[in-house]
């Protein structure tokens, strides 16, 4: 008789004790970006499979790809912290607001409710970083990163560090909307120059120092960006 009870007991318990199999969406890192998007994001969760799709604020995440599974993680590869990588899409209407992050797997949609914040670009454009090397040669592509760096509206130039006059100009080329751009080093003599950019509306890029501002030495309010041109290739 007890055998029947045992069987019943086991049958009753197994579903309850089955290890969790439902997918879980845990986080998106980072959880904010400029409205231009273009920020590399990582979505992590558990048991997400490798065929999921995702969106931020209703717009598909770009460059979406599942992380390669690490064989050393064995059976737990999908259990904890399984990752997808992608790039945040643009959403100019969402500046200053939170939007949902949705991940769809096998027709099931998981949501991080208002899990992503779109930062409105302060001002016409904002340059957060310029990827100059220690030395550069004419024609080098110099990355310019920030927001609102519209290639149709923003132009730049190299300026003398002694009298702050413009020596050459360059065009901005967009690599990912107004967030990731670059310019090519114009044909100028070897030397060190100040980099400056302006918007057609007249605004400057936030951190850049206006060469016309004779107070360049007040470096606490702007960060002068210098570029050194060395046609010999320098020490690169």
């Amino acid at each position, binding site marked *: 008789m007890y055998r029947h009870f045992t069987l019943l007991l086991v049958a009753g318990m197994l579903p309850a004790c089955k290890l969790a199999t439902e997918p879980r969406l845990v986080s998106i890192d980072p959880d904010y970006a400029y409205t231009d998007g273009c920020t590399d994001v990582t979505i992590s969760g558990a048991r997400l499979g490798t065929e999921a799709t995702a969106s931020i604020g209703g717009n598909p995440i770009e460059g979406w790809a599942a992380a390669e599974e690490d064989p050393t993680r064995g059976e737990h590869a999908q259990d904890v912290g399984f*990752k997808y990588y992608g790039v945040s899409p643009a959403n100019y209407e969402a500046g200053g607001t939170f939007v949902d992050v949705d991940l769809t797997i096998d027709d099931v949609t998981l949501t991080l409710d208002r899990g992503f914040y779109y930062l409105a670009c302060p001002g016409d454009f904002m340059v957060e970083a310029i990827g100059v090397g220690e030395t550069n040669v004419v024609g080098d592509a110099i990355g310019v990163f920030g927001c609102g760096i519209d290639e149709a509206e923003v132009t730049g130039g190299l300026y003398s560090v002694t009298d702050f006059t413009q020596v050459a100009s360059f065009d901005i080329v967009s690599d990912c909307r107004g967030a990731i751009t670059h310019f090519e080093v114009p044909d100028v003599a070897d030397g060190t120059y100040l980099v400056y950019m302006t918007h057609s509306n007249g605004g400057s890029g936030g951190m850049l120092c206006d060469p016309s501002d004779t107070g360049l030495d007040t470096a606490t309010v702007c960060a002068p960006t210098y570029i050194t041109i060395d046609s010999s290739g320098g020490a690169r």
Partner: protein
Amino acid sequence: MNRMNSLLAVALFANLPAIAEAAEFGDIRGVLEDTDGMPVPNAEITLKGPNVPMPRTENTAEDGSFSFRNLPPGTYDVEVVFQGKVVTKGQVDVALNAVTRANLTANLNASDATIDVFGVRPAMDTTSSALSTSLSAETIQNMPVGRTFTDVVNTLPGVYGRVDTQNGGGGGANPSVRGEGQYGNNYTIDGISVRDPATNTVAQSVNFDAIEEVQVYTDGAPAEFGQFTGMAVNVSTKDGGNEHHGSAAIFYSQHAWFNKEYDILDTSTGEEAATTKRRFRSPNLALTAGGPIIQDKLWYFAALTTAYDWRIPEGGDTSLSSFGGQGMGKLTYFLNDTISIRYNFTAAPDFFNNFDNDPLTNAEAQTDRRDMAMSHMLKVNIAPSQDTQLEVYGGLTQNTINVVPVSGDAETPSRRDFTGGLFDNAEDYDFNTRARVGGGLRFTQFLNAAGEHRIKAGADAWFLKFNRELRHTGETEIEWIDSDGNPTGEQTLVGTEYSANPEEGYDCTQPDGSDCYYREHWVNVGPLGNTVSTYSAFLQDDWTIADQLTLNIGARVDIEDGRNDEGNSPTTQLVDEFTVAPEEREVGELGARVMPAPRVGFSWDVLGQGHTKVFAHAGRYYDLAGGDFWEWSNARSSAGFVRYTRDADGNWIWSNTQDPEGHPLIYAAGVKPAHMDKAIAGVEHVIADEVVVSLRGILSKTANIPEDIDVNLDDWYIMNSPLKERNYRGLEVAFQRRHDGNWGFYGSYTLSESFGHTPGQFELASGASSGSNGNNVGVYLDDIGEQADRAFFYDVGYGWLLEGLKGLGRYSVTDDTYNDDGGFFGYLPYHSFHALKLNGSYSLPFGTTLGLVYEFDSGHAWQKRTLIPFYGYDGMQEGRGTRFMPASHYVDVRVAHMFEFDEHKSLELSLDIFNMPGFKAPITYFENDTVGFGKVMFRQSPRGIRAGVKMRY
């Protein structure tokens, strides 16, 4: 196991016995039949044992049934006489809080020479729906385990203690069980809780050779047991008896046998590197003695353990040492057949030399710790019949921890104290005192009314006083200094010293952006403390409706009330008033927390033969909040969050954080400790030779977990977060055979998972020291769930801060749809997907005993936090991120040979080898973060040996 670890864990967290009482008795129930299976009425059954002064005699009923109740655990000689003739005799084991079924066969026609001698052990308790394991002295003495009761507990199914499942590394003295953390258990020795109510850790151990029985409720404990959400461990020590017995033993333990290095993470470089294993050496002396002072009237039992430990921490080169011991004395006076009085005394001094080797302080300086724990307990047992028993008890305990520097001065500060402060000179100290006084009563009554009832009721009250006095003399006002060491003229907080020397402090940045380094000093905060009163009451009825069915019905209520050092109950506010100006909020009083915990279960002896039972149990379990909970009414912690303000004369003075001017932590109205709801069901069956096979399932959910929630930057509440919970589900099969003097065995396989909120829960705080264990109360900002506040962070360029701290889950008061369960997600550290344990011992006929402990842990992953790079290895060595424990095996063996001179005199030589194969599996590495991926943080404890000589008389 490394005793130093245990000692440190025990002593660090101070000891303060006495919370809840627990059963110290067991019962025998059986039927006497003749060889034809017919009941034998009116037979006289006499029981003698070392733990009862006088023989007990009962007559069998008309149906042959008999019972002995309220017996101390141990082995009893039983003789059955029918019509003036011995018809059978033998021995019966009694386990703590369990019923031993002894169905005896009387050979009515036999002569003395042909009587069968029986041996009965408590194989299965058909009256209990709990998952309880009783381990006898023979069982634990013959297994290769560390000589502490917590090491013994680690061998049980559902218990994880060999590794620190929370932080990684070797396990300490605080195992975790069934998805609950290391701080959720309650421990009683001789019926008195020895859990530190401030830290919820084991506060006091006992001489291993003094242990009579260890009983562990992992699940379904009756209402008598409370104030825990993990397990209840109930240790019973030996009594004196009417014969003089004792033991003397010397053991020597050593780690790092053979190879001395392995690769683990070097936190200074972020790379794995050859690292010196943790090493220790420890000689240990253990003495016990017991016997009659007056035959049948007054017994004594005493035990003493002393140990010297020398160790070098993993990767270190500074030796640390400690010397300590535990002494206990027990006097039992039998006033008459009805009343007995017992007095217990314990003392446990521990001295730690150079116990901390913080690299920030100079290598020459030292800090010592001198601890002393003492307790007195008096208990009166009144048993007018074996069906009625009243126990009245009271006690007083006091524990002190004194941390003092033995070198160093203001120029060369000494060691960091255990709460994170730096001592400056030999006049500084950190002196903790915890005293507790209280008592209670427990009443047991057996009744025959619509079946048989075993009714237990009890109540107790304990009053705890924490006191702490810090003296730090480095209280000068410090100014910023430039890279040349010249003051910049800018003022900083008092008590913090800045230096241009990177060797002298942590990284910081001066207002002008230049690097600096700092270390903290505290002013003399003077004595501070709080008072916690706990009251509890329970009623339990184990009601055997019919021979085959027993209901276990019970309820208990615990009440906890805390006061700050000014005698006031902490003030409370309504969380949803956080948007209101502080002066306009409704202020209440925290008052006493009332925690009702009902429990119900059944046990069905399916065939009525005590061989098969089906059982189920469901109940609620409340843990106490403990000292930490209330200490927040003094300060955010006792030291780390002390605030300073200037008085009218411009002098810096200390003020606690209930000061409304200083972003205080606020008690939310109605906040109470966490509770766990647990349900279990299973079936047990006795197969051949007293081996019990058990299949059971366990489900539990712990909710209402208190946490500090920073709803915005200014308002931090201690509240029962709706986001935080823990879940456990497991399926388990176990085989057990109680040791019969020859062999015993316990094997189990557990399939389980524990998931819920990541560590960080308030109730797990250790010593209320911010940041310890990565598992503590702290203001992590990531709780901020108000969208406007989060948007503010992003807009001003501090989104990276919220990002870096993400992991606990945001909580919005105004919009619960914005709550983030990201922090809730995750496997918790306190489990293993697959765990296999095989433990046992076998004695060969010529006196040699072989013991084995094998443990397989399939490994598990858990979410701790995310984004390790935010902190970097220098700032937070433990890091945050997903941890992973690959599979690990432990194989411990024991070989012992006993030279037996007579029934009581023997000499035993033993050799225990722990982790005999020298496995060095990683028992924590970072899994999927960008910095530490795949880096091994800790490995298994190295192979260790223990050699011993023990003499018994």
